[in-house]
């Protein structure tokens, strides 16, 4: 926008600054992209080739075989942590987390914004204090609690404790407060009760927000590492991101490390969340940047 008017008056000197702008952006893009491309290149090579030469400027023919190994072959003792199994677990964690978070968050936010409630202030602070302390800080006692409840190595043990934070509630509270007040008044005059108002008016109004939240929360859930590392000790419960730890340890110990297989697993752990973020870019950016207000 800005540069058009300037370009007209002084063409030559401005051209160079435009070139410089592009150079900076290209350098930034390469900084972001190159590491992944290098890892991707290694997944097309035989392992012995990688060990001898490292990443090279050519595309090998081993991709199919490495993919086969990554998806079907297991590295653990039980033979249950195949790439497919871990991917399934990652999807369950990501979707379950996003779904739970949004449903609970919308319910609580609706109660806080649209009702006259005596304990509203207390409830508000009880919920919003959770924004301050991430799970990482209280990791050991959380583990003990989940252990006492017998929820180790279960999907709900994996998902529910992660939901105990108020990000979605906060987000929806902000959004609900920005919804014009006349809507509630009109709905009440028309005789709509709280449930009808929520289902027929508020939820349709929030569609874009729900979509944005869903993307952010899915990525957040999929990328969880510390909690799954502690809660899942059975290999059949591993997620892709949690499996990374085991992959690095296997690489360290092996005589001929399976770089093709492990690097491809890392790529597979990256592709679904990245694809979602790229495809639904505008929603995602909107949701992310709205949340700070």
């Amino acid at each position: 926008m800005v540069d058009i008017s300037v370009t007209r008056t002084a063409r030559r000197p401005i051209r160079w600054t435009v070139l410089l702008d592009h150079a900076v952006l290209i350098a930034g893009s390469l900084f972001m992209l190159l590491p992944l491309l290098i890892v991707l290149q290694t997944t097309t090579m035989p392992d012995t080739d990688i060990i001898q030469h490292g990443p090279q400027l050519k595309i090998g023919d081993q991709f199919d075989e490495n993919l086969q190994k990554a998806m079907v072959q297991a590295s653990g003792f039980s033979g249950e942590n195949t790439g497919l199994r871990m991917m399934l677990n990652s999807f369950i964690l990501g979707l379950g987390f996003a779904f739970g978070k949004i449903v609970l968050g919308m319910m609580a936010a609706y109660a806080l914004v649209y009702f006259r409630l005596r304990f509203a202030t207390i409830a508000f602070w009880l919920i919003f204090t959770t924004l301050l302390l991430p799970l990482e800080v209280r990791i050991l006692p959380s583990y003990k609690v989940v252990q006492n409840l017998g929820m180790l190595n279960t999907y709900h043990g994996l998902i529910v404790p992660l939901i105990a934070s108020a990000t979605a509630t906060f987000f929806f509270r902000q959004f609900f407060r920005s919804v014009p007040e006349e809507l509630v008044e009109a709905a009440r005059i028309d005789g709509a009760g709280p449930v009808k108002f929520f289902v027929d008016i508020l939820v349709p109004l929030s569609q874009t927000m729900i979509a944005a939240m869903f993307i952010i929360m899915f990525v957040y859930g999929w990328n969880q590492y510390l909690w799954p590392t502690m809660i899942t000790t059975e290999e059949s419960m591993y997620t892709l991101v949690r499996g990374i730890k085991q992959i690095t340890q296997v690489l360290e110990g092996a005589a001929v490390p399976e770089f093709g297989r492990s690097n491809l697993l890392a790529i597979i752990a990256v592709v679904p969340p990245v694809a979602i973020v790229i495809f639904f870019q505008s929603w995602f950016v909107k949701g992310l940047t709205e949340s700070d207000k």
Partner: protein
Amino acid sequence: MKRAGFANTWLPILLLIPQLSIVAIFFYWPALEAVQSSFFLQDPFGFGSTFVGFENYADLFGSAEYRKVAWFTVIFTLLVTFLSLAIALLLAVKADTILRGAKTYRTLLMWVYAVAPPVAGFIGVIMFNQTWGPLTNLAGLVGWDFVLGVKFNDTAFAMVLVSVWKQVPVNFIFFLSGLQSFPKSVREAALIDNRSASGRFWDITFPLLAPTGFFLLITNITYALFDTFGVVDTLVKGEPGNNPMTLVYKVYVDGFRGNDLGGSSAQSVILMVLVLVLALTVFQFRLVERRIHYT
């Protein structure tokens, strides 16, 4: 709450119960448990525990190792925050002025947001592979004998690099959307008043971005303190040994590997207090900031 709300009493309570009970069981209970067990010394073989008062805390503050970890965390946090904010700001300003290919650049610069920290760490391990890692080779060209996971400073360098790589995209997204929300009139006025681009940046753009920058500053500090766990864990390759680590990582190492429940809980409590202080500062600043809004 809205002026015009609904008057039911049981419905809002019913709506709040799921969230409140999850928060109570998985947030408040563990948090209180941490405070409580920080005052006890646990028998390493699990035969009960004895009340020791503030001894766990005294041990921590007296320990040279804990102080070393705390110092590393401070320096690490400052470096990661500063570098990722600076790089992201530069890229956002450039992406905002450019006309051609703006969308492509935006996509190329933001996708790393979705990469999990441990996967980023894993990619770092590959890049710094001892025998053929491209970055190890690059360091070798300038005579730097880079050994990841063995030399303290080298591992610390890799941690900062990977953490910055992972964090630049979020900052970029926020800065760019902040820049694009500037009113057109402000830009035009600035263009008339000030011909030099760097002058316009420091006099107009930078102060206008201050609220976004402040929000990001806090986000980045919390990121460097807590979310880099996965990066640290993969880059030290599961062998903390002589390697650098952050305070959060030490909570995990002492609690799970060392089985020192009391000491680990005391560390958790220290971190909680630290975060609460940080949060209160933010709260105070936000109140002030309301009054210095420019737009």
